[in-house]
């Protein structure tokens, strides 16, 4: 007989309780796994949904018969053929205008072919189908197309083409591209990071290394965290009031001799985005600065360094990987923001590349938003393609963040 009080289960009781514990553990493990599964399914659905729109069957015909321009089959046309055809069939005025924009001979074959389709045979899209339908219901689609659009050709195409990336906006979905929007987005992100990174890192350094710890700094600290959660449209209103209207002389470039612009420039929008990501950058930079061990600061002070020398030579270099990663991730949020840009006044139709901070601009999310509101299905298809471009840009930025971090971490 065991003399000790049996507060702990023994023998069969112990195994019974152990089995219960394992059963509970298994339930929780399943729950955790389901959570992961839901996340994976959601992401897959997102990607699939985008892909679904960007590829698929298209029914189209030509307003003018290609045979009227050339006897060569369309898919065998060479650059020389296209030059001759365009020269002969476009009106001299139209041809010269194109030639003045950029010499016809220097243009790529695909570009000339696009001109041929756009200006001469005038391709006309009748209907588009999603990728899923195109893959699994191709017979029905063929029948439907033959019935509804007699004479139209049916083709499986990707709306995401090299030309889609390099051509500017167009009122016809077949010829529209995201060039202006991609450049606009890059300008935005560039201006945002140039503005927000120095300011954000400076603020983080001051808060962590210089500011005394008192009620005032803790209020500031709390409010920076709160600002990170303010809806982006509010920043849009701020940008409209401060950058577009208040500082119009600067943001329109009027103070620098630019005359043909108002405050709705890529500079205003970039600064608005900068303000938008500023709290995130401050928080990330503070985190990075906080991660620098105190022993390092003490070592520096111990050999007679001033505060600036300590911060500049030791704290900043050691926090840099974290600061860079945090900043890039913060800025990649700006890349996807739409609401502030609408308020600040992104152009909805613009085919000129942004050439200076004082240019009018559009951005990828604006372009996507704009295209999805159009009734024609072909615009939905190019919106899906633009989303793929946006996602690719985001992934590139994030990859850059990881690469930078690894690169700087290897150095001591």
């Amino acid at each position, binding site marked *: 007989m065991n003399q000790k009080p049996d507060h702990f289960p023994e023998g069969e009781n112990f195994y019974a309780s152990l089995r219960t514990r394992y059963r509970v553990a298994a339930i929780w493990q399943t729950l955790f796994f389901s959570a992961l599964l839901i996340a994976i399914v959601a992401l897959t659905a997102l990607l699939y949904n985008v892909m679904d729109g960007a590829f698929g069957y298209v029914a189209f015909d030509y307003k003018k018969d290609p045979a009227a321009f050339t006897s060569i089959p369309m898919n065998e046309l060479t650059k020389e053929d296209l030059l001759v055809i365009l020269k002969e069939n476009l009106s001299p005025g139209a041809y010269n205008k194109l030639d003045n924009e950029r010499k016809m001979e220097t243009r790529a074959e695909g570009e000339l072919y696009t001109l041929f389709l756009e200006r001469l045979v005038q391709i006309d899209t009748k209907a588009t189908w999603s990728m899923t339908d195109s893959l699994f219901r191709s017979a029905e689609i063929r029948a439907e197309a033959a019935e509804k659009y007699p004479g139209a050709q049916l083709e499986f195409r990707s709306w995401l083409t090299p030309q889609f990336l390099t051509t500017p906006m167009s009122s016809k979905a077949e010829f529209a591209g995201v060039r202006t929007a991609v450049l606009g987005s890059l300008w935005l992100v560039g201006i945002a990071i140039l503005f927000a990174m120095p300011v954000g890192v400076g603020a983080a350094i001051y808060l962590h290394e210089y500011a005394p710890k008192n009620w005032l700094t803790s209020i500031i600290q709390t409010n920076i965290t709160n600002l990170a959660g303010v809806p982006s449209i509010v920043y849009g209103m701020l940008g409209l009031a401060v950058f577009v209207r208040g500082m119009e002389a600067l943001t329109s470039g009027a103070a620098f001799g630019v005359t043909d612009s108002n405050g709705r420039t890529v500079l205003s929008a970039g600064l608005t985005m900068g303000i938008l990501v500023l709290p995130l950058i401050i928080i990330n930079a503070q985190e990075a600065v906080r991660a620098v061990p105190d022993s390092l600061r003490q070592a520096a*002070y111990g050999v007679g*360094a001033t505060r600036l020398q300590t911060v500049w030579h030791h704290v900043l270099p050691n926090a840099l990987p974290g600061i860079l990663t945090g900043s890039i991730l913060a800025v990649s949020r700006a890349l996807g923001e739409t609401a502030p840009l609408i308020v600040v006044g992104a152009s909805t139709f613009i085919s000129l590349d942004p050439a200076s901070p004082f240019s009018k601009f559009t951005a990828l999310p604006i372009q996507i938003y704009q295209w999805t509101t159009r009734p024609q299905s072909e615009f939905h298809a190019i919106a899906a393609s633009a989303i793929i471009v946006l996602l690719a840009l985001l992934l590139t930025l994030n990859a850059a963040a990881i690469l930078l971090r690894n690169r700087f971490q290897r150095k001591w």
Partner: protein
Amino acid sequence: MEINYAIETNDLSIHYGNFTAVKDVSIKIERQKITAIIGPSGCGKSTLLRAFNRMNDFVPNSRVTGEVLLHGNNLYGRNVDPVEARRRIGMVFQKPNPFPKSIYENIAWGARINGFKGSMDELVEESLRGAALWDEVKDNLKESAYALSGGQQQRLCIARTIAIQPEIILMDEPASALDPISTLRIEELMQELKKNYSIIIVTHNMQQAARASDFTAMMMIDDNRSGGVIEFGETRTLFTRPTDKRTEDYVTGRFG
């Protein structure tokens, strides 16, 4: 005969907010000697040590009353810059904390920011020799200081400290993170260093204090948990014929 003291304190008290961590310390620390500060955990040994080169300035709400005199000037006087205090009074920390840079840079940096004009290569060699590290690292000065062992890192930190040619070196339990052999090397090094520097060392290790120091300050907390020096004198006397009962209990290992 007038003894020129390295550092003197008069009624030095250190407060954190309303709490007095160290109370009314008045000791005179001799030049080119090793002075050990011993006492149980939490008695304010490190706090007192860090008051000597104003490292407590970085602790929020810390406040110092009384005087710390270096050449008769109060370190906490109005016209004294803490940076200058740290330049004259170097410090070696409990955990080796080399900069995440090369061995060479670890030593050169402190000299450079203090405006050193001479030959850096010579200074680096001299300092490493002074810290008994030169022979071990002379062929890989460009390598990371983090590649060194703990004992080597601590000697590098000592080399870094003597590179800026301070008058006094403060050591905050410099061997507590090291193995016995590395500890012995640090103690031997201290005997070398005291030819040129005054050394103040905080230690938990009673044998270390007895072996390595010339003078010992015994600290203990009072009823308000404020630490104070209860006995200060030559190490031999303090360990063999302590005047205070608490010192006797402590050094004979009866508690603490």
